[in-house]
């Protein structure tokens, strides 16, 4: 007697969010099934990987992470072009760190010009992140949103204590928003309500649940995402948004990724460790429902891209 598999059917569906404009637009979300369970429901859009770039040269990136970007870290446009042309980036995520009062305090207008230039040089959709200083971001992000008007970028990050200015800017200029909560499902849901109460459509919101790398709270973030996704698939519209996971940022902060070989010879070559750490973290979050992974090293990206392609090959054929 054959074993009959029991398939779960869900009443809810994740919102489909479109990032970018015209022919290069990318759609994420739209599924009514848990990740990779193709027989349980529709998974119309595969998870996407965004390359993270900065407007200032990163000071604390390990050598291995700097290596693939040799010669372009000082020039964000060239950096973006390398991601797009050489590493086949599908989405580019620019972090405007240079605007931070402690990291150069670049004027907002200068950053807005940079956004404009990026949009001219880069064909793939853009994620635009502020510098992380609330006060500066509230001045910076509206002008950057305006500079990218109509390009339907994904802009971040709105947090529970500071979401109004960004939401208003995103609403005015036709973008999507990243709603960030500190590994807290209750705040994630509340923030989605607050943002949608301001009039932004629910299919313009992407949740950043905040994640931890392998060994640094991955399981906790994983279970929060899983719980939110199960609730969304069961009909909770205020959690039915796609997830964005900042995997690169977390993985390359891990001691296992950064520590020198001379310090821990038993851990093997540093060259491989960071890549493995980032890829392993990313693949775990694919399983908990990540729709966009923001990553850093092209080799980890390749590895994760292969993983996605292998899992989607039956869908492709």
């Amino acid at each position, binding site marked *: 007697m054959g074993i009959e598999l029991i398939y779960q059917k869900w009443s809810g569906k994740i919102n489909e969010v479109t990032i970018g404009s015209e022919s290069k637009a990318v759609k994420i979300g739209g599924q009514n099934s848990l990740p990779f369970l193709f027989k349980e429901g529709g998974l119309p859009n595969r998870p996407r990987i965004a390359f993270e770039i900065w407007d200032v040269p990163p000071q604390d990136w390990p050598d291995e992470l700097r290596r693939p970007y040799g010669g372009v870290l000082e020039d964000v446009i060239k950096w973006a072009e390398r991601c797009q042309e050489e590493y086949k980036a599908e989405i580019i995520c620019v972090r405007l760190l240079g605007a931070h009062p402690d990291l150069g305090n670049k004027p907002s207008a200068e950053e807005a010009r940079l956004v404009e230039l990026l949009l001219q040089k880069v064909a793939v959709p853009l994620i635009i992140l502020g510098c992380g200083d609330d006060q500066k971001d509230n001045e910076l992000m509206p002008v950057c949103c305006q500079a990218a008007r109509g390009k339907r970028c994904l802009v971040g990050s709105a947090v529970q204590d500071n979401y109004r200015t960004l939401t208003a800017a995103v609403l005015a200029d036709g973008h999507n928003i990243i709603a960030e909560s500190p590994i807290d*499902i209750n705040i994630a849901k509340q923030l989605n309500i607050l943002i949608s109460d301001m009039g932004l459509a629910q299919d313009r919101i992407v949740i950043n649940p905040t994640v931890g790398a392998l060994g640094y709270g991955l399981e906790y973030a994983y279970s929060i995402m899983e719980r939110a996704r199960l609730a969304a698939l069961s009909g909770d519209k*205020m959690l039915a948004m796609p997830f964005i996971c900042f995997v690169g940022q977390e993985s390359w902060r891990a001691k296992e990724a950064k520590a020198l070989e001379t310090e821990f010879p038993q851990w093997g070559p540093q060259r491989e460790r960071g890549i493995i750490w980032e890829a392993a973290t990313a693949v775990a979050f694919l399983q908990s429902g990540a729709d966009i992974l923001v990553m850093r090293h092209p080799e980890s990206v390749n590895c994760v891209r292969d993983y996605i392609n292998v899992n989607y090959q039956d869908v492709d054929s």
Partner: protein
Amino acid sequence: MFIIGELINGMYREVAEAIKNKDKGVIQRIAKEQVEAGSEALDLNCGPASRDPVGDMVWLVQAVQEATDKILCLDSTKINVIEAGLKVVKNKAIINSTSADKDKLDIIIPLALKYNTGLIGLTLDKKGVPQDKERRLELAAAIVADCQEKGFPLENLYIDPVVLPVNVAQAQLEDTLKVLLEFKIISQPPPKTVMGLSNVSQGTKQRSMINSTFLVMAVAHGLDAAILDPLDKYLMDSLITAELILNKQIYCDSFLQAYRKR
């Protein structure tokens, strides 16, 4: 919780008059109000004063489905009234209700199968409403067994333990709650459970408080569906909070609003 709005009932004067005068506007407004307040189904009852219950049921069904595509719960003890309504229902329907009497089950279950409807089974029979938990369970088991025999899917069956007013049969209410859990062990899959809630406060001076408290207690005993007044905000807030406490919704500061946004 599957909410069946109870307000389209000829027992209410406004509804009775609208039925009499064939005033669709009134009925459609009440239908829409109940849907906006969270009803997934609407109970339709012509009321005791109707002189042409068959014609009135048909008219009610047609009027309401012009305003909403929610499930319609056709409420009558008369089989010909139910069938006349079913003939014109476009979407899904639930038959409200059958007793546990064999002769009635023999007619109603085939009708429910023919029109692919849900079915509410009351745990009462010709001898009346049971006085205790054991008899309610016995009657529920009889309905379940008959459904199984006739091939009616149990997930479409709602067993109603028959709620009596607190000022009439106070001693029975605890049993009425406890039996909800016992209905679940009659069969696999188990039947669903439903209550005609407002009856519990009939003739009392604190209707909303009694309805709300009883509903919260019933939810804690696993109640699946209720026929209630969805425009009673206190009642609905209590229900949403009870489901939150039972971990059926994810908490957020605006959980009442979040539930209503579903």
